[in-house]
C-alpha cells in the first residue's frame, strides 16, 4: 500500500535555479526509503515540502490521502520528524518533560502516553539520562531522545533528516539499530536522508539518489551495492617503503614512501584477503578503510547513464 505519493515535485526559491526539479516517487507502508545526495542536492527541501512546511512551486504530494500544504495541521498527527541539525527538546529541562509536553500537544491520552514513554525508555535505553538536563547530554544521547520524541504520538510516517550527522561510528551504529528496531516494532514508514552511504546501506530497502534537485538513481539497495558500492578505499601507513602487493582488483591511487592509498574492488577479492596480503608483506603502522565518496558514486551513475 502506497503511503507517500510524489508527482512532478518542483521547488524554485530563486529564478533560474530549482532546488528540487520535477521529481516523482512513492513509498510503500513499512518501507525505509533512503534519500541521499551531496550538500544542496535538495534532500531537506523535499522533506520540508513533504511535511508541509514548504509549499511546492509545482507538483503534487499525497501522504496518507492528505495534501501536506493544505492539511498540514491534520497531517501533523500522522507524521514525525527529526532534523539532525535542529533540536525539538527543551535544552534546560530533562527529556521526560519534552516527551510529556509533546504527548499533551498531540492529545495523547495520559495512560497511552505513559506506556509509550516507558516503551521508549526501555527500547532506546534512556533510563540513565531521562531525568538529566538535555544540554548536559552527549550528541548521541540527544539524538536518541530526538527520535523517541518524534515517535511519542505514534506517527505512521517518519522523516529523518540526517539523524546521524556529527556522530561517531559507534553511536551511528546504535542509532541505526534503533531506527531498524522501531521500524519493525512500530511498523512506521521511514524516509531517511543522509550524506552517509553506510546509513543507507544498513537501513534502507530502496534508495533514491538526488543531485542538483534531480533524481539520478532510484533502485533497490541491493542493485546500488552491487553496481556502485563494490569498491572501497584503503589508506595505509608503513614503517618502511610500501611494498605494492600484486592482488587482483587492487589499484593504487596515490603512493608516497611510507604511505599509500588503494582502491579495491570487493567483487574480485575480499577485503580480508587484501588486508592479510598487505599486512604479511609490509610492516603496517596504520590502516583505514573508507567507502567511495558519494560524489564519486554520483559521477559513476552519470557516466553509466
Amino acid at each position, binding site marked *: 500500500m502506497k503511503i507517500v505519493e510524489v508527482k512532478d515535485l518542483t521547488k524554485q526559491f530563486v529564478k533560474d535555479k530549482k532546488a528540487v526539479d520535477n521529481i516523482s516517487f512513492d513509498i510503500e507502508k513499512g518501507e525505509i526509503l533512503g534519500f541521499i545526495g551531496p550538500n544542496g542536492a535538495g534532500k531537506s527541501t523535499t522533506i*520540508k515540502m513533504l511535511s508541509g512546511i514548504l509549499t511546492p512551486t509545482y507538483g503534487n504530494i499525497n501522504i496518507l490521502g492528505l495534501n501536506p500544504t493544505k492539511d498540514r495541521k491534520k497531517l501533523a498527527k500522522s507524521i514525525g520528524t527529526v532534523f539532525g541539525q*535542529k533540536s525539538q527538546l527543551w535544552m534546560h529541562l530533562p527529556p521526560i518533560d519534552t516527551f510529556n509536553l509533546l504527548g499533551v500537544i498531540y492529545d495523547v491520552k495520559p495512560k497511552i502516553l505513559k506506556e509509550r514513554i516507558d516503551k521508549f525508555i526501555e527500547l532506546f535505553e534512556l533510563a540513565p539520562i531521562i531525568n538529566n538536563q538535555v544540554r548536559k547530554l552527549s550528541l548521541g544521547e540527544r539524538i536518541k531522545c530526538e527520535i523517541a520524541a518524534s515517535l511519542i504520538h505514534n506517527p505512521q510516517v517518519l522523516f529523518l533528516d540526517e539523524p546521524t550527522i556529527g556522530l561517531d561510528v559507534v553511536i551511528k551504529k546504535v542509532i541505526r539499530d534503533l531506527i531498524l528496531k522501531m521500524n519493525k516494532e512500530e511498523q512506521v514508514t521511514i524516509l531517511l536522508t543522509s550524506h552517509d552511504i553506510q546509513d543507507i546501506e544498513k537501513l534502507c530497502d530502496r534508495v533514491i539518489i538526488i543531485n542538483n534537485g534531480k533524481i539520478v538513481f532510484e533502485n533497490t539497495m541491493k542493485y546500488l551495492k552491487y553496481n556502485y558500492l563494490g569498491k572501497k578505499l584503503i589508506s595505509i601507513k608503513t614503517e618502511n617503503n610500501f611494498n605494492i602487493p600484486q592482488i587482483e582488483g587492487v589499484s593504487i591511487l596515490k603512493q608516497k614512501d611510507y604511505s599509500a592509498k588503494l582502491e579495491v574492488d570487493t567483487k574480485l577479492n575480499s577485503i580480508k584477503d587484501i588486508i592479510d596480503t598487505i599486512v604479511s608483506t609490509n610492516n603496517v603502522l596504520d590502516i583505514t578503510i573508507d567507502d567511495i565518496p558519494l560524489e564519486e558514486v554520483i559521477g559513476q551513475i552519470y557516466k553509466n547513464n
Partner: protein
Amino acid sequence: MKKFFYLAYISIKNYTFYLKDFLITRIFLVIVIIIFSFIYKTLLGSNQSYASFTLPMLLYYLAITESIEMSKTLIHNTISDEIKSGTVAYILLRPISYISFHVSSAIGEITIKQLVTMIIGFICAFFVSGFKIINFWMVIASLPVIYGAVLLNLFFMILIGMFAFYIEEVRPIYWIYQKFIFIVGGLFVPLEFFPPTVLKIFKFFPFTYMNYFAAKMSVKFDLHEYIIGFSIQLLYIFIVYFLSILIYSKGIKRVSIQGG
C-alpha cells in the same frame, strides 16, 4: 486548553532552572529604586507631591513599571532566531498554532517573573520610602490592567518578531519600541509630569497602556479612568494580536527554512 496550560507550566519549570540568575538580576531593581528615590526627592524639593504624586506613590509606581519591564522575555529574538535557523520547522509541524505556542510558552515565565519582581520592588519601595505603604486594595484591583500590560507587551514583541519573515534583523525595531516605552510608556515617571497637551496625545498611543496606566491605577485608582483605560488596553491587545496573525499568515508563505 490543556496543551496551553501545560506549555505555560513547562516554561515556568524551564525558567526555574535559572532561579539564582533571576534573583541576582533583581539586584538591579533595588539599585534603580534607590537611585530614583534621590531623583524624585530632588524633583519634589520641599513639596509633598508633584502632579499629585507623593514620594511613596512614585516609588511604588516605579516598582510596578519596572516589574513589567524586567519580566519581559526576548520573544522577538526567539522568533527571529527560529525563522533564521529553521527551528521554526518543528513548531510548524505540531498541531498547535505558531503564535499560540509562543504566547503559552512565554506567559508562564513572564507571569512568575512579574509577580516576584513586583513583590521585591514593593519591599524595596517600603524601605526606601521610610516604611510607607500604599493602599494594596488598589494594587489588587489593578491586577487585570497589570497583566493586561504584560500581555500587550508580549503581543507587541511577538508582532516585532513576525517582521523576521520580511527583514533580516528585528532588533532595531525592538530598540525603537523600547525607547517609546521609556518615554510614552511612563517607565520612570508618570505621564502627568509632562504638559497636559502632551499627556492627551500620549493617551492615544498603545505604549501608554504597556506600563504607565497599570502603575498609575495601582497607586492612584480612579474607576472612571480605569474602565476607559482598560477598554483601550483590551482593544490594543486585540489589534496587536490580529496584526501578528495577519503578518504571520502572509509571512509563513515566504518562509524558506534553511539547512540540508
